[in-house]
């Protein structure tokens, strides 16, 4: 191998490294939004209290609809953790408005069409619905991920939280980008 060829190979190497970055669907390793959302969900779970006594026993169920990378990240980083004494159980939900009982339900951008029906079915139930679209709090979500100044933040509705029997801790409220009271 000549020296020039060696140098060319070195120069090309990072091109190939990068070519392995986001494909369809986005590579989980590089899905920064999914990584952040997973951590937010875990922290939110720790800072909310479920008034319903039934919800304070058994597994702490996080349902994920529409974001494979978020599901994967939750499984990888948080599925061996607990919320209080409740072990976390992460479930990948099928695309359906008939959602099983869970503590937190994340519905991704790709399944926004199902949300009106989901809100209807979840009405009054002790499930914390998390979404990621403009106007979500007005529609019924408790927590909504928003993009502000190139950062991922969250906004929340205390009114909607109350409707679902959730008590939001002061810290969570104070750290939110926006709070609808």
């Amino acid at each position, binding site marked *: *191998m*000549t*020296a*020039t060829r*060696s*140098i060319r*190979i*070195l*120069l090309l*190497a*990072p*091109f190939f*490294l*990068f*070519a392995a*970055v*986001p*494909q*369809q669907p*986005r590579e989980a*390793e*590089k899905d*920064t*939004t999914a*990584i*952040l959302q997973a*951590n*937010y969900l*875990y*922290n939110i779970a720790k800072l909310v209290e479920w008034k319903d006594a039934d919800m304070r026993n058994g597994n702490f169920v996080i349902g994920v609809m529409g974001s494979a990378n978020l599901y994967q990240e939750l499984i990888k*980083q*948080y599925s061996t*953790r607990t919320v209080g004494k409740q072990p976390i159980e992460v479930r990948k939900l099928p695309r359906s408005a008939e959602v099983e009982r869970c503590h937190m339900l994340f519905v991704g951008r790709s399944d926004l069409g199902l949300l009106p029906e989901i809100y209807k079915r979840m009405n009054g139930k002790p499930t914390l619905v998390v979404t990621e679209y403009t106007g979500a709090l007005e529609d019924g979500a408790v927590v909504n991920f928003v*993009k*502000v*100044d*190139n*950062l*991922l*933040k969250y906004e929340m509705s205390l009114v909607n939280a109350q409707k679902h029997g959730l008590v939001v801790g002061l*810290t*969570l409220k104070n*750290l939110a980008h926006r709070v609808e009271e």
Partner: protein
Amino acid sequence: MKRIAHILLIAFMAIGMVRGQGDPLVDALRKYQAGALLEAKDLVDRAVVSAEHGTNAEAWLLRGFIYKDAFKAATDIAQGDGFRAVAITSLQRCLALDEAGTYRENATQAYDYLARSYFNDAARALTEMNDQRAIDVFGKYKEATLALDPTADLRSKEVEFTNALGTVYTKRFTAQREDTTMFEQAVDAYEHVLAIDPENYGANYNLSTLYYNRGVFNIRRISAEDEIPTIMQVQEASREFFQLALPYMLKAHDMNPTRKETLLGLEGIYYSLQDQESSDKFRQLFEEIAPEEHR
């Protein structure tokens, strides 16, 4: 052809050296012709410090040849480096003394070979991830080239070498991300290339990738122990890297708008900057390019 010129030169030197045995230069030539390099080397060393041959261009040329061959035959790197350095200085001395230009062509050919060997060794050292040796021998390549021709334009070699050096630093950083020294050195390397050649596609692309990956790595380090204020701090730190990455990737994209890795790169950077619209735009551009157009 060079080999024939070399043989003719040796024959010419042999004819010129009518002196008999006992003259270290003649003896050095004979030993050299016989392939006894070590003995030839000792004899020619004696010759060039003698009053008779000290200012003899021919003697310095022969010394340059002998040491060049000794360098080629050396199996030990340090020894080879030493022989090459002596060959270089001997040929420089020959060229300085050879006012009539009798040995210019042969001396220059040998000198060029030795100077190029520095560059080749620098490239080899980079392939072996031995960046310090690469820097050292590349420095000697520049020094040797400029000694012969102070107006030589080394920019393209500098760009080629430094880009490859940046890649080595990047690989080192990727292997050991806690140590950011390699990251800083990689940034310096690519910035150095861009100072010489702002239109260099590789440096623009690689620098952008370096910043982007650093931002992603920061976010990947977030763990279950981290609370919301920490997430915000990490995001802010990563945002800086993503923002730094963006202009270089845009530049690389402008230089070759149908290159798939820059389209994916921009998609990834905008996505990490939480700019979904721009990210989707570049994803769409990527998907619009037929596979055969990907290059």
